[in-house]
């Protein structure tokens, strides 16, 4: 469709960006005996990586793509390489920026709790980011799959960090789900290659796939579901249960990997399939958009009911993640420009908000040792800053200003109207209402409920600054995104909107 207009620029920038965490991982191993140096590698790599990725923004806004092909693989038509387009850049920016913040947070968290095996932790973390950024920047499905698997394998040691029996069985569940998914994904990729001779992400879908003709209709539908199964990382129901189980991981891991990198890689993949492999038109003809939207709607509603039933804060957040991920899937499934815009913008926004929530949960755990919501009476008084950040982003999750969740939901609602599917508008609104049902009690308990035993004087006791500052920053950013959009402040965060604009333009021809 629009691919002819896109100018591609050859550059090694993506390679350098991805080498940052890879190099860091080696250095971390080498300096395992000196914790301060070890952690500084993470920070340096994070900052360097983010600047490299950010330096690609102007090119992308110019409606160009950055290509970096290493070699033609043994399979004709598949090259191993990176191609940075607007959509990939959104994910890469989000993941790399949040990695910096979470690294600081990790230092505070891991040292406060005197966790064991910290070298392994930082090593695997760096590798996982390597995988996530690789997924974001990949030029085709095969390259993406390679990084996808690296991401899966490298997060296993993080999930079972505690090394208790429970943690290990959680890890096994994690692997059972995600590597089975990998098998489906591999099949789907090879099938796509077999059918079309290419696996490149093409704005508007792969032409050869759309031109296969009606005899392949069933095959294409099956193939799509294989892809969906392959992206179990998106935690759509009924294949979601690995995510709450994986919450046994240390909180920074849950925060970055299970709110941003891993699960977002899943939805990122689904959006890639919908918009860049199948294409909006083909999805519409096959009726797959509707099917996907139904799955997403189901997940949104049911995950919220699950969330209401949870008492463990992290588990509740996990179900909330499942729900929010399906917002993104739903947005893509609507196959309209506003829906896709909402889906794409929700990737960074949900990342920022959910990471704040997780970081708050971790901070509460470090300071008070409390994991369950029912025990949190009075936490709002002891940890005002943390709980304020929590409250703001929880509002954002429900789609209430002043956090950016409102904006993505606005686009999504608009998308449903554009698609003429009023029913999904109701689903969206119901889901948002249910969000309120499980987030507000937390806020209520934290601020307004007296702790049992009625202690009078309450001492303010916040988490270490290493933890407090990152979580405040992410909360501030969540608000900033909102203000920026509403008031047209044109601060730096406006870039996100522009990039999404370009990405939507790539996928759907602007009328």
């Amino acid at each position: 469709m629009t691919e002819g207009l896109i100018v591609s620029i050859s550059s090694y920038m993506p390679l350098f960006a991805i080498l940052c965490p890879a190099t860091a991982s080696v250095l971390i191993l080498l300096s395992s005996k000196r914790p301060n140096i070890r952690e500084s590698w993470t920070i340096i790599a994070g900052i360097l990586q983010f600047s490299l990725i950010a330096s690609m923004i102007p090119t992308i806004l110019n409606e160009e793509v950055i290509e970096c092909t290493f070699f033609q693989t043994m399979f004709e038509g598949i090259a191993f390489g990176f191609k940075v387009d607007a959509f990939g850049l959104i994910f890469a920016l989000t993941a790399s920026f949040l990695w910096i913040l979470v690294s600081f947070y990790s230092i505070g968290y891991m040292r406060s709790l005197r966790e064991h095996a910290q070298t392994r932790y930082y090593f695997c973390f760096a590798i996982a980011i390597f995988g996530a950024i690789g997924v974001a920047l990949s030029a085709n499905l095969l390259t993406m799959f390679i990084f996808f698997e690296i991401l899966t394998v490298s997060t296993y040691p993080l999930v079972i960090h505690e090394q208790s029996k429970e943690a290990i069985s959680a890890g096994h569940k994690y692997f059972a789900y995600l590597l089975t998914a990998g098998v489906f994904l591999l099949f789907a990729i090879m099938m796509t290659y077999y059918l079309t001779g290419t696996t490149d992400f093409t704005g508007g879908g792969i032409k050869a796939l759309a031109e296969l003709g009606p005899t392949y209709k069933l095959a294409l539908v099956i193939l799509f579901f294989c892809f969906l199964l392959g992206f179990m990382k998106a935690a759509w129901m009924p294949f979601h249960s690995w995510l709450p189980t994986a919450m046994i991981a240390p909180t920074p891991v849950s925060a970055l990997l299970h709110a941003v990198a891993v699960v977002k890689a899943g939805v990122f993949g689904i959006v890639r399939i919908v918009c860049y492999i199948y294409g909006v038109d083909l999805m519409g003809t096959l009726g797959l958009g509707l099917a996907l939207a139904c799955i997403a709607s189901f997940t949104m509603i049911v995950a919220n009911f699950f969330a209401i039933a949870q008492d463990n804060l992290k588990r509740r957040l996990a179900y909330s993640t499942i729900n929010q991920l399906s917002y993104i899937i739903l947005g893509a499934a609507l196959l309209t420009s506003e829906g896709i815009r909402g889906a794409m913008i929700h990737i960074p926004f949900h990342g920022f908000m959910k990471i704040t929530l997780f970081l708050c949960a971790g901070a509460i755990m470090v300071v008070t040792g409390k994991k369950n919501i029912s025990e949190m009476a009075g936490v709002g008084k002891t940890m005002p800053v943390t709980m304020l950040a929590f409250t703001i982003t929880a509002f954002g999750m429900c789609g209430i200003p002043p956090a950016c969740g409102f904006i993505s939901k606005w686009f999504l609602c608009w998308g449903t109207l554009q698609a003429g599917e009023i029913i999904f508008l109701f689903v969206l609104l119901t889901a948002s209402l249910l969000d309120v049902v499980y987030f507000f009690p937390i806020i209520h308990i934290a601020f307004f409920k007296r702790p049992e035993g009625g202690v009078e004087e309450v001492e303010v006791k916040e988490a270490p600054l290493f933890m407090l500052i990152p979580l405040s920053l992410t909360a501030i950013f969540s608000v900033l995104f909102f203000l920026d959009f509403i008031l047209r402040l044109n601060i730096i965060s406006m870039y996100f909107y522009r990039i999404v604009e370009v990405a939507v333009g790539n996928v759907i021809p602007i009328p």
Partner: protein
Amino acid sequence: MIRLFLAEHYPVLVIAISLLSAFTILIAGWVNKKACLPISLASISVQLLLAFFILHQVITSGTIHYWLGGWAPPWGIEYVVDAFNAYVLVIVLFICLLAAIYSKRSIEKEQPGKIVPFYVVFQLLITGLCGITVTGDIFNLYVFLEIASLAAYALIAVAGGRALKASYNYVIMGSIGACFYLLGVGFLYAVTGSLNMHDLSLLLPPLYGNKVVQAAFVFFVVGMSIKMALFPLHIWQPDAYTYAPSAVSVIIAAAMSKVSIYAFIRVFFSVFTTDFIEIYVPIAATLSWIAAIAIIVGSLIAIMQTNLKRMLAYSSVSQVGYIVLGVGLYSTQWGLYGALMHILNHAITKGCLFLVAGAIIYRSGLWHIRDFEGLGKKMPYTSAAFTIAALSMIGVPPTVGFMTKLCLVLASLEAVEYVFVAVILVSTLLNLVYFWRVIDRMYFVRKEGEEESEHEITKEEAPLSMVFPALILGALCIIVGILWLAGSVTPLQPIVNQAVKALLGMGVVVP
């Protein structure tokens, strides 16, 4: 011109050097036991060097023919080396070299009294393996097959105890296999009066309908299937692999099984041709199905094992299935290619795993997976090598195992055999189950009753001469994987492509 002249002699030199060194070791060992290893190492290194020259020669200027004693082919014995032979020869000698380096410490500990005979027989084994690989005469192949097998029986029996029974089983089964092969040779000789492979491939086509020729083919297939431990004729193999001395396990699992497979493929395609297999004995489909069953059953039995070496042995049963599946799918673009690829891949991976298993037994005397707790800290390098090789077995990109999987999936898709696709993908998960169990034990599972103590675990790494080969193979798992992926940029793909063409084309000789 003189260099060219020399290269013609390399195939026979490879064998002669090995054979001579066997006797030199015997004499030198009488004088000084310590002389055995250096002589063995030196001769294998020279052989490997020659093998590389042969490979280079074959790739650049075509097949090498050597007439033994100057007798012209149909009457005299001819050594014919094309890309396939040279490729296998390099793999085999490389594994032998590493095994020889490795054997120094392991044999000193396991069999201190039998060093001289060990190296003599070891060298004879290598003679046999090289002989099978370079010869172009089916009876000569039988002779070398017996040399190699007899040497292997002896080497396995060296360990004494249970190894005696294992060796005896192997003798019986191996002899039956060899007899079948010999019967096949006899039948063909009776019909055609020739033993030269190329000559046979020219004489046979008019006789394809002859029942004797067809019977000969079946004898060949069954005989070689026993030798390469194709399910269900594998029963000798687990015991032999398990109870053989560590260095011997490496050779018979990684090198010898490959040579048997080489002989199988050679007879399959170069003596008989694809025409014969397609029209007269349509065995390809049957072979593929047997292979598919082997893949699944081998893995399932491996899951049940508690002894590491035994588990690896059953894993070999399933891996042989991969290669045979590739052979069965030879009519597709990637089938035979994948099979030849996996010869190298499996040699590297399984070699590494057996090296590690031996190192663990050497250092800590542990055979059973359940005792492996904490090995990740005690033997960090050994465990790292194991982890990489295990990931390769599972097929995590970018390791070699992943590349094989890709090829075979693609071949199965092309053949429209979805069952095989499923088999390959399911076997990924089965491999995951039994390999991850070991990794879990090594790194993550805590001993019963052991709490989160951060007490220093002393490093008890295996000696350098044992760790080094394992690490090299571990690194190769990834490097070769990337080389395969990079396709035509690297020298690997042209070699295998040439080999596949020669096999599917007109037999051994490509003028």
